[in-house]
């Protein structure tokens, strides 16, 4: 479990970011939605932005960079540009402190050699065989 702080450190409608540690692996954001504390991975699944810096609207946070919205309870994005959900985490309040229970840390993907990949050609990412793609070549 990761210590976040005192409940009063997270005011209504605000969020705090807990930097990555050996326990969490990645930064975590904890939001206060009408008194309920909800935790997700802090980094947007689209590109590099901190969701704790985002705009809280009801039970969703809007990413500060390109406005993808994530449901704080399910982690699901409501539409583009985010393609994948953020992880959600259980929040535990005990003895006057807020903790987050984080599952196994996510390992950073190994950086890829852009040129080598480009040579290998563009995969029809996200599109299954059902899609009708014709190229002139």
């Amino acid at each position, binding site marked *: 479990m990761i210590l976040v702080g005192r409940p009063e450190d997270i005011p209504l409608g605000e969020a705090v970011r807990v930097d990555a540690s050996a326990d969490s692996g990645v930064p975590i954001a904890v939001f206060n939605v009408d008194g309920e504390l909800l935790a997700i991975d802090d980094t947007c699944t689209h590109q590099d932005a901190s969701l704790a*810096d985002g705009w809280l609207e009801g039970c969703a946070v809007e990413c500060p960079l390109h406005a993808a919205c994530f449901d704080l309870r399910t982690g699901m994005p409501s539409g583009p*540009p985010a393609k994948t959900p953020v992880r959600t985490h259980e929040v535990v309040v005990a003895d006057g402190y807020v903790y987050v229970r984080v599952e196994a840390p996510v390992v950073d993907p190994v950086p890829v050699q852009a*040129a080598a990949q*480009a040579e290998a050609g563009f995969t029809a990412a996200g599109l299954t065989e059902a*899609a009708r793609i014709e190229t002139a070549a």
Partner: protein
Amino acid sequence: MRTVAVIGGSLAGLSAARALREQDFDGRVVVVGAEDRLPYDRPPLSKEFLAGEIGVDDLALTTDDDAGLDLEWRLGDPAAALDPRGRSVVLASGREIAADGVVLATGARARPFPGERLGGVHTLRTLEDAVELRGDLQAGSRLVVIGAGFIGAEVASTAQKLGVEVTVIESDPLPLGRVLGAELGAACAALHDDNGVRVITGAAVTGISGDTRVREVRLAGDRAVPADVVVAGIGALPNIEWLAGSGVDHDHRGVWTDAEGATNLPQVVAAGDCTFSHCPYAGFERRQEHWTNALQQPAAAVATLLGRSPAGTARRSAPYFWSDQYGARLQFAGHRLPDDEIEILDGDPGSRRFVAGYRRAGELVAVFAMNQPKLFGKWRRQLMPRHATAAS
């Protein structure tokens, strides 16, 4: 309406195809793309992709959900002519696509540097451009970036990180001064200085010389800057030439549309970087070559095409763009005119962490932030309702 042809297979084209399905169009959707690839994201081409931090797959814009949209892709075969009266699009291969609705989303291309093309001289618009440029950015080599706009500054920043010795040349007295105003242009220019990148301002480039490869960039006043690699970041031109004779109103600034993407022909709408559109926020026609516009404008254009009430889809919000340079995040929303007054709303430019507002007759019309995404989000929301409705 039975068939809609979307011309241009990038951010605006994909967004239009998705919007067609979201707005319950169940006919045929054919997406025609000049590039041989499915839609990919361009902003990382000057940032993480150029730096080698992410790969080609990370650029994909399509998702699993798009497979369910039943889109027909015609890739690598650009549209060559539009005959709106005959309601058909002819592709470069000679193939013809009959359509009763057409969405123009052909975007823009990099403005080439005039003169013969020497080795080592680049522009940056496509994935292939980025791969070629990356191959030339060897540590220790000397890069000259012509134009200190956003793409030029991002390329300079990425190259500097790769150990390249970078010089940026700008014809204006101040980088980004025309976009952000002198004070904030200077704040951005300082990022180059902070990172040891030399900026030569007020200098006109007269030519690029070398044998087969570039050797130097020549400046007015008999000066020259040695270069192994050159990137010209001197703007983009809308891809509109193929519309000659189509009857669709357009000029060098793009396809003319109203705020909802309507052109002068009822069965043709347009969106994204290829348009010269009425901006309800600014109150006049302009080109908006920014990612968020290409993502959002197609929904309104598609509503117009399908004859749906544009209410709800019309874009009334403040235009927005961002840029990442030297680890700094820059964000801008709204519309600025040269006489607007700049007010620092939070922080100070010297700390490279601040929010600034632009006021016109006291009213907040635009916001700029450096490394302050959270406060930017708050101030940006102060812009929207007032100005947008006033200008519509």
